């Protein structure tokens, strides 16, 4: 019955209806149709306009600080007897890759004539990145954040407020990221004309997964030429990235998706362990379902109720995964690994001491995956260092107290 399967597909390009294999689409109530259709019809065209491209590239360079370095991590490489390059998204303005996407979407929103911006946030990184670009463009900004996350992430809440955003607590359901996303979608339903919803990951109804992946694809675009400068080849053997919804991974994988010699390694949060009941390893635990407007893998009960995941890292604490990634998993194109809270913490300290870089807890999962791969000194491994660890200092301090470091 699937019409989609007859249309030529790549791992990179979804079908016209937004399908990556059997995942994707736009499972939205009719109330959202005009907004989503407007985006579907116009995002590609607007993104290709010279004026858009010029402003986007200029802001990425002068405001975000791109290109971010590709850094050969010598001591880390020695430790794993291989060649490891770190794509330094942690050096972006606001401290993570999230701003690549929010810059792109604010320019898009501006061209669509929108006056009001809404966003969801978990740990607050996407909220901060959205509040930042709204300040930059003088637009009204409302960020939905789970009531529990507001308590857990006070510094980012303060940042958003200082940047002029209104932070609205999501008090429904489990009061975390998935509920913040529900509230943002409800806001969009109730404000159909003047509002643009900046989704922070490669999730949501078509065209969001593709649009966000394209805005983040600057990561792999730069990796290609930077790696060529350093090694003579633009293709690494591995690209490793952590995956919650999957935006940094989508950006780091993008230009390698259809380069089959490149091993794509997506690292999910195992929490207390994949089978502990306290995990966020969606590909291991999820089943095909519909969440936040697209068909993908979703962690859920036998009755189809979405469950609350667990990860020490708020950015990976999401019960779904973008449809692009679900397809990488389903097709075997991507290798999916899971890393526990404990192993991620250990990796964060290792990287800090070997390389003088304190990574975000999310990114620490990607580093820990090195232990699960058998690598050789002939290989060139790129790790997407998606964010810096300042926001996680409280967790790291607690760890130091507990372990007596």
């Amino acid at each position, binding site marked *: 019955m699937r019409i989609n399967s007859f249309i030529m597909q790549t791992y990179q390009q979804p079908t016209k209806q937004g399908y990556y294999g059997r995942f994707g689409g736009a499972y939205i109530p*009719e109330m959202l149709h005009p907004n989503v259709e407007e985006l579907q019809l116009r995002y590609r065209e607007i993104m290709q306009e010279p004026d858009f491209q010029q402003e986007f590239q200029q802001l990425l360079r002068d405001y975000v600080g791109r290109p971010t370095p590709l850094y050969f991590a010598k001591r880390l490489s020695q430790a794993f007897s291989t060649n490891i390059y770190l794509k330094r998204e942690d050096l972006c303005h606001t401290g993570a890759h999230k701003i690549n996407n929010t810059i792109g979407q604010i320019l898009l929103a501006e061209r669509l004539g929108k006056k009001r911006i809404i966003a969801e946030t978990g740990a607050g990184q996407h909220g901060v990145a959205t509040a930042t670009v709204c300040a930059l463009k003088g637009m009204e900004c409302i960020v939905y954040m789970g009531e529990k996350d507001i308590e857990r992430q006070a510094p980012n809440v303060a940042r958003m407020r200082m940047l002029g955003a209104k932070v609205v607590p999501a008090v429904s359901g489990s009061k975390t990221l998935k509920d913040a996303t529900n509230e943002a979608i*409800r806001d969009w339903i109730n404000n159909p004309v003047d509002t643009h919803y900046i989704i922070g990951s490669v999730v949501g109804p078509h065209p969001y997964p593709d649009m966000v992946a394209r805005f983040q694809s600057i990561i792999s675009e730069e990796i290609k030429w930077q790696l060529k400068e350093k090694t003579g080849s633009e293709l690494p053997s591995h690209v490793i990235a952590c995956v919650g919804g999957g935006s940094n991974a989508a950006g780091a994988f993008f230009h390698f998706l259809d380069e089959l010699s490149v091993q794509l390694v997506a690292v999910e949060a195992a929490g207390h362990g994949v089978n502990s009941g306290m995990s966020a390893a969606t590909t291991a635990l999820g089943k095909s379902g519909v969440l936040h*407007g697209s068909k993908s893998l979703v962690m*859920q009960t036998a009755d189809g109720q979405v469950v609350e995941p667990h990860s020490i890292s708020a950015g990976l604490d999401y019960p779904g995964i973008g449809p692009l990634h679900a397809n990488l998993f389903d097709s075997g194109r991507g290798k999916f690994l899971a890393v526990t809270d404990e192993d991620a913490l250990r990796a964060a300290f290792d990287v800090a001491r070997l390389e003088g870089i304190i990574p975000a807890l999310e990114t620490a999962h990607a580093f820990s995956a090195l232990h699960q791969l058998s690598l050789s000194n002939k290989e060139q491994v790129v790790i997407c260092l998606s964010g810096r660890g300042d926001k996680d200092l409280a967790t790291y301090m607690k760890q130091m107290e507990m372990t007596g470091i």
Partner: protein
Amino acid sequence: MSRINALFQRKSTRVLNVYCTAGYPALTSTLPVMEALQENGADLIELGMPYSDPLADGPVIQQSSSIALANGMTIETLFHQLENFRERISVPVLLMGYMNPVLQFGFERFCAEAARVGVDGLILPDLPEYEFETEYGAIIKKYGLDFIFLVTPETAKERVLRLDSLSSGFLYAVSSSSTTGSAKQLPAVEAYLERLQSYKLTNPVLVGFGIKDKESFDAAAAHANGAIIGTAYIRALEGSTDIAATTRDFLNGVL
């Protein structure tokens, strides 16, 4: 002829559809609520299947869903409760819910069970037109179920006509671009309903979202075949100790 079509043949004005959440306020309330609704003048019953992430619903209905889930309601349990319900309920009954739980149950198995117990149609707001046409619509039709699409004031004419042609039973006109339970001014909706009337649709039109009392029901019914009440009834049931009396008082206040 489907039970819904028969209803609209018999009655084409002031048709009242009332929404209730299965398993709310108590797990065993489903049937008593339906009986009370039928007894007190509801022409159709829209039975909500609770879901953890009901995007199109406002806080009141979401809260009722959370309570129903905490009470232990599942689709499996609901079909057990609906076993033989046709011995007691004669009005048309629609199941309303979201795609994810239905997909988990198995879409075809769901339609088969719904048809077997005597359900007449489905409202699945996050089942889009493309997927309906390419995959799910045929299964729904195979089991003789009606499927009701939603239209809003923002839906363009061509799209309204298209969704009307895909719908059977009736067309659900959302009175404003909002989640359920949002209070918008009904007079502003009249022009929209008159516009819908001018399209000469093949299906009857019921108006939902923001209908809460006699005044809003009368106003909606003046420009459509009837209306749908949800949030206001759920609110009335909250804390009720006598479902029959609460439902009687509530519907007496509307009709």
